[in-house]
């Protein structure tokens, strides 16, 4: 009798509210909106723990010969750069619209051991967009990718370009060419937007910057999951006198920087993400609130 009472109480207190929450459609599944902080942390912690537990015991083969790394680079250029980008190279436009946004792997490779990189490449991650490569690539190829990933943290953008050139990888993909799909299309439009939208809309900018993978490289206040240390943290960016340490931090320069960083700092690892003029103004307006 007591047991049935307990079941009944649990049903009333937990199951029914959960069921009505799900049925209400209250939770937003749109990829333009990050998970709420508790859900994000739960998923992130769960993913980390899961990978760690399952990768334990994997034996790493020797990975440090140049041929393996080059093989890995070619595979990376063929299968990975479209979503993850590379030093100084933006992901393809479709990947910028993904939630979660694909990780910057220079950071991942700094922090994750080879066993865990291998596990993720091989098995993928549910509901993250990361596919499993187990049935697409041979085991030696999976390890070659891991070998290449491990070189990423030490590669400057110029080093990466040189590696791609030397390996002849650029023939395989167009991903290393700066893409312009996300830009406004014609430059006449760009000028017009500047005139019309001088101020920019900070609220819209906050949403927009989550659609250009800013969060995969920068720590950004008020954005759930934006805790990555590839580039500098953006807290206080509004009161910093320089952008990228090279140009004065004016609104016009920030817009220019967001749209074509490599035109301002030729060696920067920040890629051209195809930011439209309207989006650049709105993102700059949001950044201006970070004092």
């Amino acid at each position, binding site marked *: 009798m007591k047991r049935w009472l307990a079941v009944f109480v649990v049903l009333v207190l937990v199951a029914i509210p959960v069921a009505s929450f799900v049925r209400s459609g209250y939770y937003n599944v749109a990829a333009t909106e990050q998970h709420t902080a508790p859900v994000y942390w739960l998923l992130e912690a769960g993913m980390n723990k899961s990978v760690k537990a399952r990768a334990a015991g994997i034996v790493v083969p020797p990975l440090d010969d140049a041929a393996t790394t080059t093989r890995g680079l070619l595979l990376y250029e063929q299968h990975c750069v479209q979503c993850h980008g590379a030093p100084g190279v933006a992901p393809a436009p479709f990947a910028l619209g993904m939630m979660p946004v694909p990780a910057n792997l220079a950071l991942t490779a700094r922090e994750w051991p080879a066993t865990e990189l291998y596990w993720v490449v091989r098995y993928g991650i549910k509901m993250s967009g990361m596919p499993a490569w187990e049935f697409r690539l041979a085991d030696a190829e999976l390890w070659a990718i891991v070998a290449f990933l491990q070189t990423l943290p*030490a590669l400057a953008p110029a080093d990466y370009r040189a590696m791609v050139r030397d390996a002849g990888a650029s023939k395989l993909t167009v991903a290393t060419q700066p893409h312009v799909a996300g830009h406004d299309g014609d430059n006449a439009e760009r000028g017009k937007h500047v005139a019309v939208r001088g101020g920019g809309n900070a609220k819209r900018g906050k949403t927009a910057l989550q659609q250009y993978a800013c969060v995969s490289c920068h720590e950004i206040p008020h954005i759930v999951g934006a805790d990555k240390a590839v580039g500098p943290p953006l807290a206080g960016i509004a009161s910093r*006198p320089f952008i990228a340490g090279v140009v004065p931090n004016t609104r016009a320069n920030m817009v220019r920087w967001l749209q074509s960083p490599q035109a301002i700092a030729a060696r920067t690892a920040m890629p051209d993400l195809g930011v439209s003029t309207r989006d650049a103004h709105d993102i700059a307006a949001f950044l201006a609130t970070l004092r």
Partner: protein
Amino acid sequence: MIALAGWCAALHGCEHSARGEAPPRDSVLEGRLAIQHHGCGACHRIPGIPGAIGNTGPPLEGIARRVYLAGVIANTPQNMIAWIRAPQLIDPQTAMPSTGASEAEARAIAAYLETLR
């Protein structure tokens, strides 16, 4: 409390051990002095350095975790030492001036910065 700290670490993904060994404590202390001597804090916010609240360059909290230095080269110990000594040799465009730090001082500063995770 320990459980709480563990939970926080787990949430932030800190559990994935970072590479590199902790620098020797002596050079960390020397680094702290060299940072004060060369006035790094006038342009950078640096944890553990009194008065280092500048915001001309990027804050150095967590600099040891950052992938790139000045956004242009990989953040390795060797590169950090070279950068501290002569930043404009690495990026001619940078606003960061030559600090005049000796090799030994730059090494010590890099050792201190390596502790800022």
